[in-house]
């Protein structure tokens, strides 16, 4: 037994080892050793996000050349680099991506029924799209959490998923599983260039803002003391918060749901507060930019559109160059808009922030004169954005409108729009009702001139910002509403006075349409200087080819250069147009919005060769988001922006009229925000300020 035991085991071990050894030789499958090495670099989660059935399949594909080194979407750049090193290939930049939840409503949404079933969002969605009345919101059963192979998701207390961005590898499983699209995979590019869609969770303010700023988020961030986050949120869609916070007429505030209860949230005041916080800190919050892609883009015009487009192009990784006719970047924001509304140092700071990202500039170069489309193409620019603005003020179109003493508003503001010669005793007549006209009136008045403005509308219908009109009246400008000049009187070749008539609307109650002259009315006013500020139009003389033929079609409605309204692409495929040169006279935030829209189009043009139309683009305010009744618990008075005292304003250009608000005031104002979703909102907003005297519960009719 002794011998047999030892022998049997020995022989067995020998046979087993021998067979395995021989088998591993004979049955050796010739495998590219690189497959195993590449596979070792991959995370091994077999998530399938790359489109291959697993990590080993992806590794095989990399080795046989059908997949690039950056095949793995969940791996980081190091993964790609290691694979590239094995394959001897160069690694291309892969933009980091992450899952994001767009729904912040959670369990505050109205229920249309009570769901008691399989705990899976997909199952619930089969029943009328889920128990929540909102069709796009998070259902909250956590299917995304269950499918996440990286444990990067959890459900918050409010029942919406929270992404751990350190753990998320953007494999896309959650987005694939989510039946409502509340969770999406986003990247820097997709966030920056996303255009509002009807299936996004859009509060009314976000729909109304031309730049589509995520108002809800940045106001919440202010409330949570995350000013840096708020700034980054604003800068996702608006690179000029300092400027927009000062001169934007804030269409968003007009549509704010809080207006149903008391007054709209002071959205643009808060924006300015955040932007001022950064500027006053003196340190620029770093903005993430993708590394240079090698795509060069020429931007003609250094105004808000050009700056905005350059900013977005640079952040998504392209290399824009701004060509500016004047010596300074900033367009009308710098030099035309007066100092007391928009100080030059603010504009310079903001411009510098953008240029610091790596935007090149060439000043003193005028399009058409110093550089042509051909030159740009030759220099290697793959796309061109025309953003030259609308600088031409049309003549008054009345008798003697070319006499001495008649100037256009832009020239006036450029020449007199800063602390200049004393204009005591000079009688100035301004024609027009736009912001430009009011700026002229205020600047002249501050230099002690006697100012009369002939406004072709009633005060409510003026295109100028309401506040600015107030400011003009405060310092003693004489605004004559519903008037229009008839003729200029000339003495010794110089203008001496203006005759004007009254205007009237067809229906004075509604004040709709263009007011018409009332026959028989006639008045005269003496004038030493007449400033035409009725409108600003696009100067098409810039856009001609060598033979003098126009380069672009003219848009009949706006008078600007015609282009596709979504992509801003002109008839020349690699030339895009944006801002006032496309829309005609418009507000600053529209220019910023156009810059971003153009950047999106240019990005797709240079990377894909074609510009896709966005899906479900939100163009008009979504009707279901306009609520009739709301049940809000507390009313909190809107913040009052402190103003520079009238005395100082009369004599000085330096002081900004509107001053900054304090941190505590800003946070209190932020707490007024109802954090609206598509249909849901926080009824208890501001509950943390109930101790304050000015915060009162709203008596709800029928609640007793």
């Amino acid at each position, binding site marked *: 037994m002794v011998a047999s035991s030892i022998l049997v085991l020995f022989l067995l*071990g020998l046979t*087993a*080892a021998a067979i*395995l*050894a021989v088998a*591993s030789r004979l049955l050796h499958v010739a495998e590219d050793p690189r497959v195993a090495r590449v596979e070792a670099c991959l*995370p*091994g989660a*077999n998530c399938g996000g790359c489109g291959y059935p697993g990590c080993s399949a992806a590794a095989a594909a990399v080795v046989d050349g059908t997949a690039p080194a950056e095949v793995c979407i969940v791996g980081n750049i190091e993964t790609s680099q290691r694979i590239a090193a094995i394959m001897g290939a160069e690694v291309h930049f892969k933009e980091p991506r992450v899952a994001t939840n767009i729904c912040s409503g959670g369990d505050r949404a109205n229920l249309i029924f009570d769901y008691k079933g399989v705990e899976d969002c997909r199952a619930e969605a089969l029943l009328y799209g889920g128990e929540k009345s909102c069709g796009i919101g998070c259902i909250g059963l956590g299917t995304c959490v269950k499918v996440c192979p990286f*444990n990067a998701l*959890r459900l918050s207390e409010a029942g919406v998923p929270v992404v751990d961005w350190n753990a998320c590898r953007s494999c896309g499983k959650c987005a694939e599983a989510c039946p409502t699209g509340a969770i999406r995979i986003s990247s820097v590019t997709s966030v920056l260039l996303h255009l509002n869609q009807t299936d996004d969770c859009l509060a009314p303010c976000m729909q109304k803002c031309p730049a589509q700023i995520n108002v809800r988020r940045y106001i919440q961030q202010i409330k949570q003391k995350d000013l840096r986050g708020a700034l980054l949120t604003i800068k996702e869609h608006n690179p000029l918060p300092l400027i927009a916070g000062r001169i934007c007429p804030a269409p968003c505030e007009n549509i704010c749901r809080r207006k149903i209860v008391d007054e709209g949230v002071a959205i643009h005041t808060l924006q300015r507060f955040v932007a001022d916080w950064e500027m006053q800190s003196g340190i620029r919050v770093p903005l993430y930019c993708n590394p240079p892609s090698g795509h060069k883009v020429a931007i003609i015009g250094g105004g808000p559109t050009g700056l905005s487009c350059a900013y977005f192009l640079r952040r998504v990784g392209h290399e824009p160059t701004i060509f500016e006719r004047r010596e300074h970047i900033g367009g009308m924001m710098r030099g035309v808009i007066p100092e007391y509304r928009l100080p030059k140092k603010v504009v310079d700071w903001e411009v510098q922030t953008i240029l610091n990202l790596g935007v090149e500039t060439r000043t003193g170069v005028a399009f058409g004169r110093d550089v042509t489309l051909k030159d740009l193409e030759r220099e290697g620019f793959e796309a061109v954005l025309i953003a030259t603005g609308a600088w031409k003020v049309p003549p008054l179109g009345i008798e003697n409108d070319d006499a001495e003493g008649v100037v256009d508003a832009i020239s006036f503001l450029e020449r007199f729009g800063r602390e200049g010669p004393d204009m005591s005793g000079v009688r100035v007549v301004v024609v027009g009702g736009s912001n430009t006209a009011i700026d002229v009136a205020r600047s002249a008045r501050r230099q002690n001139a006697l100012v009369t403005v002939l406004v072709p509308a009633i005060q409510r219908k003026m295109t100028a910002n309401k506040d600015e009109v107030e400011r003009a009246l405060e310092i003693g400008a004489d605004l004559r509403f519903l008037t229009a000049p008839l003729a200029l009187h000339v003495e010794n070749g110089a203008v001496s006075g203006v005759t004007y008539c009254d205007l009237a609307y067809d229906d004075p109650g509604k004040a709709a349409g263009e007011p018409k002259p009332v026959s028989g009315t006639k008045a005269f006013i003496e004038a030493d200087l007449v400033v035409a500020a009725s409108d600003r139009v696009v100067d098409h003389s810039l856009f001609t080819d060598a033979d003098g033929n126009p380069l672009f079609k003219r848009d009949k409605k706006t008078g600007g250069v015609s282009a596709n309204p979504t992509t801003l692409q002109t008839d020349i495929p690699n030339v895009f147009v944006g801002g006032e040169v496309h829309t005609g006279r418009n507000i600053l935030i529209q220019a910023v919005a156009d810059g971003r829209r153009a950047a999106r189009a240019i990005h797709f043009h240079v990377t894909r060769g074609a510009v896709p139309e966005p899906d479900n683009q939100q163009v008009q305010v979504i009707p279901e988001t306009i609520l009739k009744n709301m049940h809000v618990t507390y009313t909190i008075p809107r913040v009052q922006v402190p103003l520079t005292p009238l005395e100082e304003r009369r004599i000085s250009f330096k002081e900004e009229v509107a001053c900054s608000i304090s941190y505590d005031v800003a946070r209190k104002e932020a707490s007024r925000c109802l954090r609206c979703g598509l249909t849901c909102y926080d009824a208890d907003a501001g509950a943390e300020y109930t101790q304050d005297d000015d915060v009162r519960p709203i008596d709800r009719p029928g609640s007793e």
Partner: protein
Amino acid sequence: MPSVIKEFTKGLWDELPPFRVVLGLCPTLAVTSTAENGLGMGAAVLFVLTLSNAIISALRKIIPGKVRIACFIVIAASLVVAVELLMQAYTYSLYQRLGIFVPLIVVNCIILGRAEAFASRNGVIPSIADGLGMGLGFTMSLTFLGALRETLGNGTVFGIPVPWEAFRPAHLMVMAPGAFICLGLILAGMNAFNRHMSRRKGEIPTEPKNAACASCAACNLCATARKEN
């Protein structure tokens, strides 16, 4: 020296098999119909695990990689045969009750798992500490489970009747369904305890990570598990 103590104690709570690290389910379920069986099985595993860890870590430099698993298995199997012989000679009735599960110790994933994960990478002393700790933890768990099932199913602990007259044992608990259900409840209890602890520490309670993976027989052989380590 403290590290040796750490290797020893981790098996007693942090990586307590099979409750914290779900390993070696077959014997856990099969032989725990009484506390005595559980204790016996645990002791057998303790013996094999400690010695196999010691031998494997001593031989770890000699064993060629390709026949690594085969060598581990032979070593473990030899020890199992030794245990079989010793049990037959000294505790024959226990040997009979444990039946087929004595030779099956060799395929208990704790043995190979520790060999691959620990003994083949560490020195002899830490390996022995690891084996002792894990083995003791396993023994305690099995004895506990056995005592629980014996109480519920038979009304006795180590054959001594529970001093509670009105107690009517549910025979089901010593049969197969009882084994599964008891273990399930204990694991749920562990989860509840962990959540309670992490909540007290102010952490966010997390799902036990990869609980299913840990229960799989072959962590040592499995590509996914290797990458996670």
